[in-house]
């Protein structure tokens, strides 16, 4: 599901929504502790090494993502807003000084036994959006989506 219900800046944002089969408080808690985050963050086959972690507004998560092919990706996240259990806004870049860091806003909607997460990422410019998806694509190539890409390319040749 990639449609955008908040499409005020569609040329420089990406919206991804997902229903998680667990109550909202539990889903939110999986975002609050590096013990949890390190278990699910990133595509299949990736691992993370955390250098520092402070879950509070203004706090940072400094970590490295390791791809199955041995590539390493620096990550620097700063939490801008934490409103349990409804909303988390963060800046995501490669380092504290990354001028191309972008904002992602996670909202958690309570549906009883399930929770709808919407992640809205707003890039400073449309060009940075294009660059970010390109970089993430490169990250994915370190994972296991190469086969999907190959199939896609073959299909659209």
């Amino acid at each position: 599901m990639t449609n955008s219900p908040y499409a005020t800046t569609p040329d420089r944002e990406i919206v991804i929504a997902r229903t998680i089969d667990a109550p909202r408080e539990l889903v939110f808690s999986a975002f609050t502790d590096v013990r949890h985050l390190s278990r699910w963050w990133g595509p299949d086959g990736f691992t993370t090494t955390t250098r520092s972690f402070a879950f509070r507004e203004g706090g940072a998560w400094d970590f490295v993502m390791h791809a199955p092919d041995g590539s390493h990706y620096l990550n620097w996240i700063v939490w801008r807003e934490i409103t349990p259990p409804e909303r988390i806004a963060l800046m995501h870049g490669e380092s504290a000084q990354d001028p191309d860091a972008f904002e992602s806003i996670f909202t958690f909607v309570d549906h009883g036994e399930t929770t709808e997460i919407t992640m809205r990422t707003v890039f400073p410019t449309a060009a940075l959006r294009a660059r970010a998806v390109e970089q993430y694509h490169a990250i994915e190539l370190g994972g296991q989506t190469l086969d999907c890409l190959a199939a896609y390319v073959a299909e659209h040749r």
Partner: protein
Amino acid sequence: MAGMARAATTSDAFNAIAEPLRRDILDVLRAGDRPVLELVGELGIAQPSVSKHLKVLREVHLVHVREAGRRRIYSLDARGLRSVHAWAGGFEEFWNESFDSLNAYVQGLKGGDTGGTPR
């Protein structure tokens, strides 16, 4: 200013579609092939501007052109679009797979297991 194609943005499909008017042209062409004059009419943009944008889109293989008598008919070109779709899929794949993992992980938390070891 709106409508002017800039040479600096012609290097690849991503730069080409950063210009809203060029995305408008692609939107119209998605509905079907068009001669230039029909694009001008549907978009309400002056013909020289539309032609400049079409030239940019052609150079990065987002549209192609064929001659039909004295008319030039434009259509979408899958070659440039392929790379755009593939790149865009990367970001979404990253998060779709992360959310898959999150969904599986929180099932383990339901039993009250709030511990877990970093992987």
